[in-house]
């Protein structure tokens, strides 16, 4: 979730960090006898918002103090935790993992342990999809999610597309779109949902190649294959592209600052990715972790995160007190669920086939 980190640097910055860091330090000695829990999250604006808004509310509700741990991201952190677990000393009790990393962790084994779901009753608010069970019990409870959406420049594109298929229309979009160059940026999932059978198409190599061949037809319309998020942001601002795929929350933020960008939920929907809280296998804080995950699953906490951090809630909108505008800023329907397993099982094949298509080799 680099989007939030980068935005942190641009917008809120250091003062914010200093205040929240100070409040954590000052709060600690008073309840040194009390229960504590170490929780990891991606650094920057994201972690600071958690410390300021979510952890303080959790401590107020349960008396458990949270010690915030900075994770660089999901993938690298798994490597860190793997080494730490082997060494017998872990830096955190709870880690925040994206779904693909969580699946990797469950496959490697011995890194995260099953949770006692009886002690996390509020998790019933979440769609079962967000409770990850690889066969030995629930290993991860959904924390928050984010969308990458269809975006257009509303001054150039008068009629908003009703479907992702509209982007394939060269008479409208010749050399005008911006897409991610990364094979796993979920444009394959979008294509599968629009022209094929969604995630099921990823089950065979032929299906994957058919999806990639369909994306190849779009190439004349792509002006920018971005590798850094800021490239797409600049291209939309500069008018180098008039549409494409971009993060929903950042797009809304740019639009609210007056830039010509408008995120859209076409009929096929937009890809939704999410993070999960996972308990380290070496942690002895099972009870505290369960209370934390229970608190996080509460619709009120989900709404708090949407307002303060810009993430999409993992509970239905009507369970929260989010207004229609607040909800539309971070979420929408329908959601396209990425074919995570295929991205892991066939990563070399998929990356190379995608790169060949993009390069025309």
């Amino acid at each position, binding site marked *: 979730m680099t989007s939030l980190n980068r935005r942190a640097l641009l917008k809120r910055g250091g003062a914010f960090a200093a205040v929240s860091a100070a409040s954590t330090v000052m709060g600690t000695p008073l309840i040194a006898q009390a229960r504590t829990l170490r929780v990891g999250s991606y650094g920057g604006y994201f972690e600071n918002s958690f410390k300021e808004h979510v952890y303080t509310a959790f401590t107020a509700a349960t008396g458990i103090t949270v010690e915030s741990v900075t994770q660089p991201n999901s993938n690298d952190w798994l490597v860190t935790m793997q080494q730490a677990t082997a060494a017998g000393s872990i830096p955190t009790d709870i880690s925040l993992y994206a779904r693909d990393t969580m699946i990797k962790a469950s496959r490697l084994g011995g890194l995260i342990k099953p949770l006692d779901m009886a002690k996390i009753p509020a998790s019933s608010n979440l769609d079962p999809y967000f409770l990850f069970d690889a066969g030995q019990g629930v290993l991860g409870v959904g924390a928050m999610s984010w969308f990458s959406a269809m975006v257009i420049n509303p001054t150039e594109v008068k009629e908003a597309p009703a479907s992702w298929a509209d982007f394939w229309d060269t008479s409208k979009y010749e050399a005008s779109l911006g897409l991610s160059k990364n094979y796993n940026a979920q444009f394959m999932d979008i294509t599968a949902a629009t022209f094929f059978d969604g995630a099921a198409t990823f089950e065979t190599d032929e299906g994957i190649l058919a999806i990639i061949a369909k994306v190849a037809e779009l190439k004349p319309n792509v*002006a920018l294959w971005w590798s850094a998020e800021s490239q797409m942001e600049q291209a939309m601002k500069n008018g180098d592209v008039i549409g494409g795929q971009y993060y929903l929350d950042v797009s809304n933020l740019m639009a609210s600052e007056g830039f010509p960008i408008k995120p859209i939920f076409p009929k096929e929907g937009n890809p939704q990715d999410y993070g999960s809280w996972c308990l380290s296998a070496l942690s002895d804080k099972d009870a505290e972790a369960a209370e934390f995950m229970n608190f996080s699953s509460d619709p009120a906490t989900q709404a708090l995160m949407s307002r303060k951090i810009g993430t999409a809630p993992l509970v239905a909108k009507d369970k929260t007190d989010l207004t229609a505008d607040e909800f539309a800023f971070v979420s929408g329907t329908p959601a396209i669920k990425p074919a995570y397993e295929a991205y892991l099982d066939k990563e070399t094949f998929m990356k190379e086939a995608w790169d060949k298509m993009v390069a*025309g*080799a």
Partner: protein
Amino acid sequence: MSVADDLAYGAEKAAVAIAAPKAAVVGRVSLAVHVVLWAAVLAFCLVPLLLVLIISFGHKVEGAGWEWALTLENYKRFFVGANWPAESTSLYLGQLYWSMRYAVSAALLAIVTALPFTYLMTRQSRRAQAVWLVFLLATVSLSEVFSVMGWDIILSNNSGLPMLFAASGLTDWLKETGWFDVLRDWGLANPRNVKFKPSEVATVLTLSYLVWPYAVILLYPALSRLDPSLAEAARTMGAGPWTVARTVILPSVRLPLIGTTLLLFVFLLGAYVAITVFADPSQHTTAVSVYEHVRGSTLNAPFGAAQSVILLVTATAFLLLGQWLTRKAARPS
């Protein structure tokens, strides 16, 4: 043996006796310096290089990371792709080709433009030369990211050249005369306006801009040592400026010229930001691919390392070729 000889012998012995500990100290110090130098070379050059070499033989585990191994699969993949023998791809060879093509063309462009500039600069007053050199050294301190950002703005639709095209009516004129459709065929326009990125021209221009100050600074010593009376003599004998440049100036700076070109070439092989911003993905380089495999979500360090080793070997071959050319140039013809 005379007394004098005796005395001389004694004095010699005494001198040796005094010098010996001093020589031993000097010897120890020089040994220590050697050890430190070698340790530094080992720690900072050889060990990382060896590590890359060893990792390049590692094995990628699908859906996880990689493990130490002794396999040639990464090298095989570079030449035929991961799905060989079912199918083969020249994707990675193509990227190596673009690495070489960009590095060679941008280095040559920088040299060809920096040479006349530097020559004219050396003909100016001491003060003017100093100002130019300080200015150029200062621009070197700009990171690649800032330079690329600047060019990005110059070439962007709402803020750069395309805006000038549209505002001056040039875009409309192109549309009326039909040239606009030709530009669209060449990928230099979208239905609304001309566009200069991604394009090879933008990439090569930006890359040569990045190394241009180095070219001037490296050519400066040779050109400033050039005796002006040589060129003046040639002029008085009736040679035109072009003849003077071709027969007097160029031959006398041939060696530094080749050396500078080689240095710029090697420097450009590792360019990353300019390529990702200005080059179409069909023209991306090995350096970009290395980064994607090592830092991307597949965490395929072994394949990234194998590509690095191949890039290193290819660059070395180019340098040996350059050295051979230099030796040929050094020989009197």
